[in-house]
């Protein structure tokens, strides 16, 4: 399978990865090679086979709805790129 430049541009946008035209072209060539490898799967007849999403067939455990973590805002925000008054700062999104 061969990906087009616009396929790769779309994937990069969905994945939130900035890429210049050279990088897009390099990624196109490498991803196409990987999808050739992946294509081996397509010939397998899997009619009636249940998808296996997990190694252990378990139902999700639920915990009691009680407070169990202490507030560590200062410790967590100490490692954030930009904070102010206990808030994480990002570029303005609303005019």
């Amino acid at each position, binding site marked *: 399978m061969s990906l087009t430049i616009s396929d790769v541009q779309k994937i990069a946008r969905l994945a*939130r990865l900035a890429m210049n035209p050279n990088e897009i072209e390099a990624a196109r060539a490498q991803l196409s*090679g990987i999808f050739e490898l*992946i294509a*081996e799967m397509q010939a397998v007849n899997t009619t009636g086979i249940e998808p296996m999403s997990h190694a252990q067939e378990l139902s999700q455990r639920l915990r009691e709805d009680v407070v169990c973590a202490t507030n560590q805002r200062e410790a967590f925000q100490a*490692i954030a790129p930009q904070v102010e008054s206990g808030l994480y700062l990002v570029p303005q999104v609303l005019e």
Partner: protein
Amino acid sequence: MLNLSLQKIGVALRAKQISSVELTQLYLDRIATHNPVLNAYVTVEAHKSLAQAKAADAMLAIGSAQALTGIPIAQKDIFCAQGWRTTCGSKMLDNFISPYDAHVITQFNAAGAVNLGKTNMDEFAMGSSNETSYFGPVRNPWNIKAVPGGSSGGAASAVAARLCAAATGTDTGGSIRQPAALCGITGIKPTYGTVSRYGMIAFASSLDQAGPMARSAEDCALMLNVMTGHDPRDSTSLVRDKEDYTRELNKPLAGLRIGLPREFFAEGLSQDVAACVQAAVAEYQKLGATVVEVSLPNAKLAVPVYYVLAPAEASSNLSRFDGVRYGYRAPDYTDLTDMYEKTRAQGFGEEVKRRIMIGTYVLSHGYYDAYYLQAQKIRRLIAQDFVAAFKQCDVIMGPTSPSTAFNLGEKGDDPVQMYLSDIYTIAVNLAGLPGMSIPCGTGANGLPVGLQIIGDYFKEAQMLGVAHQYQLATDWHSRAPNI
């Protein structure tokens, strides 16, 4: 001291023949000498390790020591350790000081073990050669031109070079077993769900599993005793009784049925590796085991299936790296989307970006059924092959890796060639089974060869016994590189 088993180091510590501070300093000195070449450690903080050693000596003094108290263990830099820089081999986390401990770290701390430092790894555990690390490649102590394997390459190199008593690793598609094979050490990936993933930076959550990397099966058993156990903070952590993984070490092999999958000895396997594996199987027969040929007809699909499922899970897991709450943020940006895109473009390396893109594509509208669901269906076929095989045998054996360690740069430009180095290990992760690698010879280039032992679910104690009996009869595991 460097070549003593963990059990014997423990005896020496408890008998006050050496203190934990002295032992820790011995390793710190070796790291200072050899790490500039091997690059096995990303972070070493002597004062922290020595403080833990001092505390361990206090426990030893009052006679409250456990099996690993005072023993210096290297931690893969994928495990968050409070107050320690935890990078996962990425620029994205170059400045990340973890505010909390992974469950595995908590367990080692509770056991009184010393954290000797954080080992280098492929970025976000994505790689089979340790060349994708932001902190530079790790070198194989058997030949510094060769790779140590990956992604737990720093751990494997450190154990082989005696830069720690033992180490932790993680294995999503072979990242404990393949570097263990390439560096001539012993490593085990237990059954999925046995070791908590809490605080272990996620790559592909349905496949990731932590395990020990050490000089022998016996050492791995002691490490597993500390690492395993239920943890409510990981929703996939299994509720099981605590096991003693040393319990079958001395069980004789008479009557053991070894399954040899014919697909593991077909085209693609180097002759020198095949010869060593066959010799190891012959040794097992001498020790009383019998051999039966088994078939894993869908195993050849494991690599393509893995390169759909693991990137799909990774693209979701790695969406958390957005430059907002922790880690790297691009210095210049125009708006929020631009900040995300530049942060991720600059913070992630090439292989990580490649896998995020594969995952994004296979999960995208119109391709989900053809790729992701199809891969999950074949995953079940692969798992069913093992169930059928284990009706005929107790353990499965084969090569861990198709070749011995290759040279740095040798597979750099072709991701597909690199992906094929995990051809024998990936199916085990897809099925969630335990798998291990033990050294069983040297290849044509004089570098170590690994024998892979695959067990049925929760049969780690049996596998460790099977490995230990071989290690009692042979000396491949005790050979050390000349560094």
